[in-house]
């Protein structure tokens, strides 16, 4: 099977002269269609730089990115842009406070010319419905929504673009635990229903266990370990991975039970 996204020896340096910072160093990995790859690592390990290169916010310094069997240029075509979407960490800032929720979701449809202009509002409403929000939320300003609802809008915005790969940049770390579990559940459902691939960036390993098929562990811009989720947790090969797993805060039994109930019962 052709990988959906492929990174081949990708590096990124910032600055020049004496102030060179190597943010990402010789990284290679694949993301298969329908797969969720978690990218974990401490702050400053190059996770967000990696996300920005995948999204085409800036180009790589060396190495190659491939998408669906073809090289991915730094200057993205609209097809590339619509296929690779982003959900950000902070739903407070990722939606324009002065525009309605619907206008934010619609932007991609307008840019990519999805649907006829008269149909687009109903497509927007359908996208909102897909993430479990009522259709009439379209006209509301983001300020009228809770954090979890805003994050759902951000997910709807990414999905409305008919994306195939979604870069999730710490999508749940700004949400409280209960809402986190619901959003994760939604992301899992959407992935199964639409055959999406995720690059799930997080520093929260307890989240990883619930959603990821494979885990890529980053340390100072380098990929130190990349393996199946179960293998990473049960048999970490690298010291650093062990440290990361050891750093997971111990959660109470009630909390674990609550998360499991939510995850299995399909409460949204």
């Amino acid at each position, binding site marked *: 099977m052709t990988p959906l996204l492929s990174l081949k020896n990708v590096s990124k340096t910032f600055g020049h002269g004496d102030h060179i910072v190597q943010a990402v160093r010789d990284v290679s990995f694949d993301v298969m269609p329908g797969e969720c790859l978690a990218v974990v690592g401490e702050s400053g390990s190059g996770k967000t730089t990696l996300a920005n290169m995948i*999204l085409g*916010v800036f180009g790589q310094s060396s190495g190659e990115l491939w998408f669906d069997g073809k090289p991915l240029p730094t200057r993205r075509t609209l097809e590339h842009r619509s296929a690779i979407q982003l959900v*950000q960490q902070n739903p407070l*800032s990722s*939606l324009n406070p002065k525009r309605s929720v619907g206008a934010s979701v619609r932007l991609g449809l307008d*840019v990519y010319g999805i649907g006829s202009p008269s149909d687009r509002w109903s497509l927007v409403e359908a996208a909102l419905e897909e993430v479990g929000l009522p259709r009439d939320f379209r006209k509301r300003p983001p300020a009228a929504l809770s954090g979890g609802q805003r994050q759902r809008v*951000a997910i709807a*915005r990414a999905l409305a*673009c008919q994306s195939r790969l979604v870069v999730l940049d710490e999508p749940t770390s700004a949400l409280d635990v209960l809402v986190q579990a619901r959003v994760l559940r939604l992301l899992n459902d959407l992935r199964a229903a639409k055959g999406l691939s995720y690059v799930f960036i997080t520093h929260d390993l307890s989240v990883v266990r619930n959603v990821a098929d494979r885990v890529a562990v980053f340390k100072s811009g380098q990929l130190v370990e990349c393996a199946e989720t179960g293998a990473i947790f049960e048999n970490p090969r690298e010291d650093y991975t062990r440290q990361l797993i050891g750093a997971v805060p111990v959660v109470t039994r009630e909390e674990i039970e609550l998360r499991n109930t939510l995850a299995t019962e399909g409460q949204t």
Partner: protein
Amino acid sequence: MKRTLVILLRNPLSLIGVILVALVVLSAIFADFIAPFPEHRGSVVDFVNFNKAPNATNIMGTDLVGRDLFSRIIYAFRISLVLGVVVLAIATPIGTLVGLFAGYVGGKTEFILMRLTDVFLSIPPLVLAIAMMGVLEPTLMNAMLAVTAMWWPWYARLVYNIARSEREEGYVLAAEVIGASTPHIALREILPNCLPAILTKMTLDMGFVIIIASSLSFLGLGVQPPTPDLGSMVAEGARYLPDSWWLTVFPGLAILIAVFGFNLVGDALREILGADQ
């Protein structure tokens, strides 16, 4: 709407501001009906009644050629407001566009646009206007032009600063990742977030434009006689102080009312729109 009323009623100064501005604007609009001697806005000479102190017929007295001061002040409000509105209607969009693109696009665009703005900002405004009026003929039109030329950089600066901080917001990144065009991001995404500050500044500036325009005509560089203008009325009367005090005191008070009113409304608007958040 309810919040607006609450803010207005809670702060008596805002209410006074609204009343003063309403007074100025309404008298300017309905000048023809309010002024007791509408024809006195032009070159009328009535030597029998010249330089009269305030009395029952001329509540603010008459000027040196016998024209009713009250009537002339009301028509002068009209000139001042038209000037203010025209200046801001031209200066605000220019300054906003310059600041918006400089702040969002950054790089060379930012450097060129903002250095140009700095050049304008470094010249004392009144001096720039006086220099322009020295070259151009002193007419209402040119006065507007001169004031506009010195006004837009302030909007460029204001919007530039807001746009620079908005550029870092997640919604801008989201629009960029989607692939929205630069004009779309600048005008549809960032501009709406600048509007509260722009509107507040416009209201505050109405007062300042009136002062600057009055200063220009006080120096004889603005609106020319016989058109009534608050600044030139003060200038004419200044020679006859303190005996004919009404010639300067009433136009001066009129300037004060207009400027004070717009300032208070501007402050209230800042609170209502939450521009200082």
